[in-house]
């Protein structure tokens, strides 16, 4: 790509409106500019440095994996009494956070939440990137990853792992589709905005992917129909993925795993951590990609409420899980190890950072701002990973025949590979949004600027009110003027059909 093209390109959104006057730039052209600019133009030094650094971390992960392949899983700290540990936790955690992105976006779509518009692309992108990373973590988990294909050939339908494979595979596919559908109009817009290509490869790619989108009524109707359908499908699908994942544990006879509560437990953990990651990603890209005008405090507060509600449900499930086993005392080994034993630091870290912190931040008005919510969300994402360690390790290391407790020790191999997965999230997202718009332009134009808050279609009023009761009652989300001063007071822009494609 030629660098000299870049400056011209940055102005193109204005040209698209046939209006070179920068003062009259309206919200939509700003939205177009903000969404498209990162995909064209010259990347900043900071961007390139970040990508380089993150790539290095990912690369280090691959090096560690090669080392592990050569020396065996023992190099990652595994032993016969800790036969499942960090990598299965990574699989659950990454696929879990993916669920949050997908379901948040799907539910907001289904309930017609127009404020979602600037967030959906970020949420769905996060879902896409993390589900791929999570699925890839199955490979370091396996002792013989090169034989993975056998699952497809020597099918054993009575194995939970076969159904894990089916569920994850289906979910990855659905996430790709869910990500792609809202992209169709956007890619057409980008091509239109950029005009005739100086970069034919990219132009052709967009053209092919946008499926001759012209924005006709019929196309719009079709796309909306399909999108609603996929949004409708992805919610139960994601529920099934995490239920099936949990059954890999719950179908064994080990105390602590053999629990009926495990499927909903996993589903809620996934939603909870996923919502937190959406907040983190939104916060990071808001700042890094200058989206302050579009993603405002209102978005964070609303997501924060959803997150806090899920956090409370998860705390409840945790209590319910431990209460029944703990009270009868039949299989208390794993509980005492969790609450007061060797896993106590992990468990109480989860309680403090994964439950108390976010609830305090959301409850106390003074902390209920972007910085506070972002901090709490980072805490939740980490604490829910830790919580998965607490779900996996005590039952796996407990002796079943009166031996001694086993133990798992992290090694540089397992830590490096896990960190590589963590680094792959921002890396994947940054590369993804180098190729496609970081916000869903089409949806934002459809919703309008403040449609996000006030402009509601009739059939969604009830859902809207239900969801935003809390948000409005605290006086923080009425109108667009809040946030941190980046919002222009241009008033409501009603999108006009003729400026669209």
């Amino acid at each position: 790509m030629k660098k000299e093209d870049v400056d011209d390109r940055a102005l193109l959104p204005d040209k698209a409106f046939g209006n070179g006057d920068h003062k009259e730039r309206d919200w939509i052209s700003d939205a177009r500019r903000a969404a498209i600019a990162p995909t064209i133009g010259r990347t900043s030094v900071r961007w390139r440095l970040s990508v380089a650094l993150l790539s290095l971390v990912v690369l280090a992960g691959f090096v560690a994996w090669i080392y592990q392949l050569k020396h065996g899983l023992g190099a990652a700290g595994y032993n016969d009494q800790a036969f499942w540990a960090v990598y299965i936790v990574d699989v659950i955690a990454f696929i879990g956070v993916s669920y949050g992105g997908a379901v948040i976006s799907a539910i907001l779509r289904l309930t017609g939440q127009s404020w979602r518009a600037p967030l959906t692309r970020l949420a769905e992108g996060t879902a896409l990137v993390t589900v791929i990373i999570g699925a890839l973590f199955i490979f370091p988990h396996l002792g013989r990853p090169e034989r993975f294909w056998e699952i497809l050939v020597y099918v054993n339908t009575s194995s939970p792992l076969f159904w894990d494979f089916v569920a994850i595979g289906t979910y990855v596919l659905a996430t790709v589709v869910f990500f792609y559908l809202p992209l169709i109009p956007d890619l057409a817009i980008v091509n239109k905005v950029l005009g005739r290509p100086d970069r034919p490869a990219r132009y052709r790619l967009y053209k092919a992917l946008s499926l001759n989108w012209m924005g006709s009524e019929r196309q719009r109707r079709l796309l909306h129909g399909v999108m609603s359908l996929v949004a409708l499908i992805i919610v139960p699908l994601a529920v099934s993925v995490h239920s099936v994942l949990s059954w890999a544990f719950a179908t064994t006879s080990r105390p602590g795993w053999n629990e009926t509560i495990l499927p909903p437990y996993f589903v809620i953990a996934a939603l909870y951590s996923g919502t937190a990651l959406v907040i983190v990603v939104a916060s990071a890209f808001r700042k890094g990609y200058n989206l302050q005008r579009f993603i405002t405090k209102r978005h964070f507060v609303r997501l924060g409420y959803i997150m806090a509600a899920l956090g409370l449900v998860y705390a409840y499930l945790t209590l319910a899980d431990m209460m029944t086993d703990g009270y009868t005392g039949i299989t208390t080994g794993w509980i005492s190890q969790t609450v007061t034993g060797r896993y106590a630091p992990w468990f109480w870290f989860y309680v403090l950072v994964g439950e108390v912190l976010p609830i305090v931040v959301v409850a106390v008005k003074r902390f209920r701002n972007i910085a506070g919510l972002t901090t709490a969300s980072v805490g939740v994402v980490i604490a829910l990973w830790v919580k998965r360690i607490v779900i996996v390790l005590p039952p796996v290391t407990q002796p079943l025949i009166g031996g001694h407790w086993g133990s798992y020790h992290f090694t540089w191999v397992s830590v490096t590979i896990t960190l590589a997965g963590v680094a792959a999230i921002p890396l994947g997202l940054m590369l993804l949004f180098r190729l496609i718009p970081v916000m869903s332009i089409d949806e934002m134009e459809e919703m309008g600027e403040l449609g996000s808050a006030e402009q509601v279609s009739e059939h969604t009023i009830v859902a809207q009110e239900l969801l935003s009761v809390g948000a409005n009652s605290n006086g923080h989300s009425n109108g667009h003027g809040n946030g941190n001063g980046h919002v222009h007071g241009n008033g409501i822009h009603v999108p006009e059909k003729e400026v669209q494609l």
Partner: protein
Amino acid sequence: MRKLSNNKQALEELKVIQAESCASSIDGQGCPITPELLSDEQPESDEKDFSRRRFLSMFGAAAGAAAVIGTGIEFLSYRAYAQGAPATNGWTGTGGMTGSGAATMASSEAPPTHQWAMVIDLRACNGCKSCTAACQKAHYLTPDQTWIDVFSLTDSTGQQYHMPRPCMQCENPPCLHVCPVHATFRQDQGVVLVNQDRCIGCRMCMAACPYEARYFNWNSNVTYPPLPVQPTPEFPVPQRLGTVGKCTFCVGNLNHGLLSECAAGCSMGAIYNGDLKTDVGVNSMGTTIKLSKFLDENDAVTFKPEQNTHPRVWYILGHGQNLDAAATAKS
């Protein structure tokens, strides 16, 4: 029960008994059933005993008619694959017994001559772990890989006792059901084996096994001397990195008229190799037992029967000993 002076003599005895029972079988096809077993068949009220008798009489079912005479419909519904049907594809195939069952039984060729079992007499075990050592030596295992492990437990009077734990060779093996690639299979003599050329190393079987009887090959730094044979599921030596391993019952030994390594290595004679078909068991002291009678008279139990795994390893307990104690984990 006869005491013989040495192991070799005991095996001779075993062969004679086998030959006799084969000759007297109804249709002359292998050793479908022993006359003793038929004559043993009486209604039993005690449930534990009932199921065991029923279990032992399964080899009658393999021959056909005896099943109907014996326990009727209920019998047939009882885990068909426990009847020792030959694996549909052998160990090189898709993994044996899943989904076969009675249908396979009917169409299969000669039923297998043996159904291997084990009896561990806890009264005789002194916890010396020579069984573990013998097993590890024979299979070139690492010190962590205790295919037969010996646990120290406490009985109801506070006395310590010892419990060797090999693979239970379950008739309803959880490890087999959860294996996503059929790497674990149950061969036609009832021994659960692992095809290490198939295993993907997911360790789901380790999670599923209630007896902690599976051991993974975690490290590549294990060295083996040059061996004259290629590894097979019956004798998986050298173990393959990144796959799971477990007790094989030394089924190769058994089929060649030898004791398993652990039984041979037990100087106390606590471990009996047994054959449910011929209803005979032998230990390292040369003691030969009539299996059904021995189990019956000594109130043999299986480990964790509530797991519904139907082990082929029976334990003889002393006074106050209780395998359930083993389930209560110490921290």
